[in-house]
């Protein structure tokens, strides 16, 4: 069964450093998403991406965040200057298209900012 894959599974970074979280969405999916879950809190929407541009973003997704689809398979989330409060599980998800409103999630990347 096709799945969304995320790398790395765990990333530790120094505060102020840039990190790139990588995702390979399901190959025939057209919509891509990033969500995060801070420990003990809810899963929160960050951003959605379609047709090579951001289609929607939340208030969490400020200027320190960016997303990119650098090639036909990868979808990345970049955090420019990490803060302690960026420590969380980051989940990538993808869905087939506008009528398919069931994003399928990857296993997540645990980001720890020290």
């Amino acid at each position: 069964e096709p799945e969304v894959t995320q790398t790395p599974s765990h990333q530790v970074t120094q505060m102020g450093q840039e990190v790139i979280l990588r995702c390979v969405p399901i190959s025939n999916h057209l919509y891509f998403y990033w969500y995060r879950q801070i420990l003990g809190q809810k899963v929160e929407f960050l951003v959605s991406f379609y047709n090579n541009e951001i289609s929607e973003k939340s208030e969490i997704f400020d200027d320190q965040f960016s997303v990119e689809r650098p090639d036909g398979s990868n979808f990345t989330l970049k955090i420019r200057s990490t803060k302690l409060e960026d420590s969380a599980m980051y989940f990538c998800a993808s869905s087939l298209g506008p009528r398919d409103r069931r994003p399928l999630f990857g296993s997540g990347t645990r980001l720890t900012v020290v």
Partner: protein
Amino acid sequence: DQQVKQNSPSLSVQEGRISILNCDYTNSMFDYFLWYKKYPAEGPTFLISISSIKDKNEDGRFTVFLNKSAKHLSLHIVPSQPGDSAVYFCAASHGGSEDMRFGAGTRLTVKP
């Protein structure tokens, strides 16, 4: 953000019995509801969904009920199995937005 609420942080059920997980929402614009299951160290796994034009959707052991007037939905698992032990998240969205809102989750434990 309390648009989607799961008021029971945990639920314990005996194997073979019914598990009922509840979810309430406040945003009347929501028109699509989903349940995800999550095991530790894994991402949420899609279970079942329901559109607001329906009041029930069934898939094997899983049934979701939607009561729009009460802004309430529930997930029924019958019969419950030990492998169902996980955290269950309710999520909601509305047409025109890809921002899916999640509840805080309910940890289900099914005892053999």
